[in-house]
């Protein structure tokens, strides 16, 4: 058997795991590993400008590809800088492995230079973390880390590697384990047959049903099954913010997404439904509004791989723990062979009601003669890219507008920080996607607040030639904060205004990219076209949009799902 140092074993393990790219930043405790990286060419390393961005890159890649991303950083500040990225991935159940250098095991606990207890610091925001205690363990630890990250409910796994575990002259036998067995970790492989049967019966008997599909459908690669089941049953489908794309937005059964800024018809349909089929969703507070007023007439079937997500905030009547794809497949088979048929008269009446809601207030906004509306920018992007681009966002109004007006028909293309709400996510996430999908359009829709939280990565884009399109919806304010201040604090704009914005065009140019400013309505479409025609260039498109615009619909705080503001003046 081959003898390798810990550092070489680590890199070989990544090769054997099939890892193509890792994103990271070197430093003292990781130098043996970086040397091992230098002496091979299978695993390629992307040098970011800040460790947080490395994690978001890995995250963007994972969301687009469905495979775990990989990060490599040094100890201390290198490790702590990854925490926001790790927490972002944790909240959205994104598979990833974060490899952190650590001071030598003999120095741990002595407040050594660049020492941080990364196992302790990361514990609340990881699915699991592992400290390497002997170099010979490395192949097994790495195999285990990827296995845990990618199976069950996915999530980030941190591996802490003390420097003396990677010493070059200490060699051990290398063999990459084929299988992992953990007696204490056995994710469900199928749902309970009796519960699935009960669910099928309820679905066929429902009069006002709705399918509520979350990020679990995207992560569980079950869009096809979800779409098939919905078509067989003829039920309306709403998505969570994380579930966007899991059911085609252009399908006539799609009601759009639901919750705080979801569509009027989806919130109304949820509230008045008699049966909710929740698939890979977690009844988040941004969906349910006040849980005690949540959907009073609805019984709930809840399918999720994570039993802890079921009956956490809202009690489920029929809990089903299992992988969404296999449970949906079984449901499809049961519905197919069942003698009972959907109650077509009831469904017809239900759809009539839904169509009335749609007619009353579909997704819409007021046009303006003077201002470019942020919504029309997103509609233009959708037209220009045929709805086929990978779109990442940061966090705020621009994120909501993008989710509302870019109609995603495919999963894995809508990439945002839904759970943690991390500003600074969009650009590095887009870079992670572009690197692995060089032929696709990759857009980062952002705002002048968010983009400045990781703008240094424009430099990384230059180094690795990552021609993403950055669409900056510039309203010269922290729009969502300002909106809340307008609505709840009598327009006292405390710290939500940015007085000295940089010249983004010059900034983009300084980093070696192209900058385009759009501040007149008539320039919007032609200049966007011009930007998208530059396939091999990163174009930073700085668009001056209506600074007074709010995101609507917006649920009324502490109300039920149906209590919404539809504009600045209309409340239902």
């Amino acid at each position: 058997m081959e003898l390798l140092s810990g550092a070489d074993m680590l890199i070989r393990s990544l090769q054997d795991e099939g890892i193509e790219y890792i994103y990271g930043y070197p430093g003292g405790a990781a130098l043996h590993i970086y040397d091992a990286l230098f002496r091979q060419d299978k695993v390629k390393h992307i040098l970011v400008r800040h460790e947080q961005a490395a994690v978001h890159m890995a995250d963007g890649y994972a969301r687009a590809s469905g495979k775990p991303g990989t990060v490599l950083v040094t100890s201390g500040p290198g490790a702590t800088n990854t925490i926001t990225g790790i927490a972002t991935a944790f909240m959205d159940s994104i598979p990833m492995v974060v490899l952190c250098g650590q001071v030598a095991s003999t120095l741990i606990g002595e407040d050594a230079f660049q020492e941080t207890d990364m196992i302790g610091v990361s514990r609340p925001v990881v699915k699991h973390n592992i400290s390497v205690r002997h170099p010979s363990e490395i192949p097994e630890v790495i195999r285990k880390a990827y296995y845990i990250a990618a199976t069950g409910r996915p999530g980030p796994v941190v591996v802490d590697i003390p420097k003396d575990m990677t010493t070059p002259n200490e060699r051990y036998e290398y063999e990459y384990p084929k299988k992992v067995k953990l007696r204490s970790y056995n994710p469900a492989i199928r749902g309970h047959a009796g519960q699935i049967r009960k669910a099928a019966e309820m679905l066929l008997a429902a009069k006002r049903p709705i399918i509520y599909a979350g990020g679990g459908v995207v992560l569980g690669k079950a869009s096809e099954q979800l779409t098939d089941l919905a078509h067989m049953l003829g039920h309306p489908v709403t998505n969570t913010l994380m579930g966007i794309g899991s059911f085609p937005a252009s399908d006539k059964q799609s009601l759009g997404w639901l919750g705080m800024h979801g569509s009027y018809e989806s919130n109304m349909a949820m509230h008045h439904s008699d049966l909710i089929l929740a698939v890979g969703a977690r009844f988040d507070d941004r969906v349910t509004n006040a849980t005690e007023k949540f959907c009073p007439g609805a019984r709930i079937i809840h399918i999720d791989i994570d039993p802890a997500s079921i009956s956490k905030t809202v009690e489920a009547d029929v809990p089903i723990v299992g992988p969404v794809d296999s449970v949906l497949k079984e449901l499809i088979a049961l519905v197919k062979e069942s003698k009972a048929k959907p109650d077509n008269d009831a469904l017809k009446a239900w759809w009539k009601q839904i169509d009335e809601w749609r007619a009353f207030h579909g997704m819409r906004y007021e046009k303006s003669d003077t201002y470019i509306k942020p919504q029309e920018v997103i509609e233009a992007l959708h037209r220009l890219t045929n709805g086929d681009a990978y779109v990442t966002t940061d966090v705020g109004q621009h994120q909501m507008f993008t989710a509302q007006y870019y109609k995603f028909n495919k999963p894995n293309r809508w990439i945002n920080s839904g759970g943690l709400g991390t500003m600074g996510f969009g650009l590095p996430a887009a870079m992670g996607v572009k690197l692995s999908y060089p032929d696709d359009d990759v857009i980062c829709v952002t705002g002048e607040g968010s983009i400045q939280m990781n703008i240094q990565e424009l430099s990384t884009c230059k180094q690795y030639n990552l021609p993403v399109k950055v669409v900056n919806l510039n309203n010269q304010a922290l729009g969502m904060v300002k909106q809340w201040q307008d609505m709840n604090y009598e327009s006292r704009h405390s710290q939500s205004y940015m007085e000295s914005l940089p010249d983004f065009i010059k900034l983009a140019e300084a980093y070696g990219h192209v900058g385009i400013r759009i501040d007149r309505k008539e320039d919007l479409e032609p200049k966007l076209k011009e930007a998208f025609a530059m396939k091999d260039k990163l174009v930073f498109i700085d668009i001056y949009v209506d600074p007074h615009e709010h995101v609507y619909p917006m649920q009324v705080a502490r109300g039920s799902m149906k209590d919404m503001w539809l504009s600045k003046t209309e409340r239902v």
Partner: protein
Amino acid sequence: MRRIISVLLENEPGALSRVVGLFSQRNYNIETLTVAPTEDETLSRLTVTTTGSDRVIEQITKQLNKLIEVVKLVDLTEGSHIERELMLIKLKASGSQRAEIKRTVDIFRGQIVDVTSTVYTVQLAGDSDKLDAFIQAVGTTGVLEVVRSGVSGIARGEKVLSI
């Protein structure tokens, strides 16, 4: 409601801190906590007593089960079970008090395990209520020091928590 949750945990560094961390992260209560290796040295057995509504307790057991190092767990309060806590208590004991304390210790089936001319150290095992009752019986003014182990528990009859 008070619950006793018994957990089999991988006997590895850091595993205990995950359990304790989970309780504080998710705003759950820990009233008592005991932990020690089992006859199988790769496993620790941990007993935690906590309070909460049924929904909170359900979340606690589900969240504990999600920890990779938790091998198995049981809520002992769901069935009949035995619980014991050990107390060592140092009492002022001089003159006529000595006989009275000795009698009380006997009634509670405790043992005096250390004696000086002015102090008795008493060892007492039982459920938590019994230990509370003993402290009440001897009167708090005579109590110099108390140390309690926290609750350990086991199910009655054939039921076992093992892998």
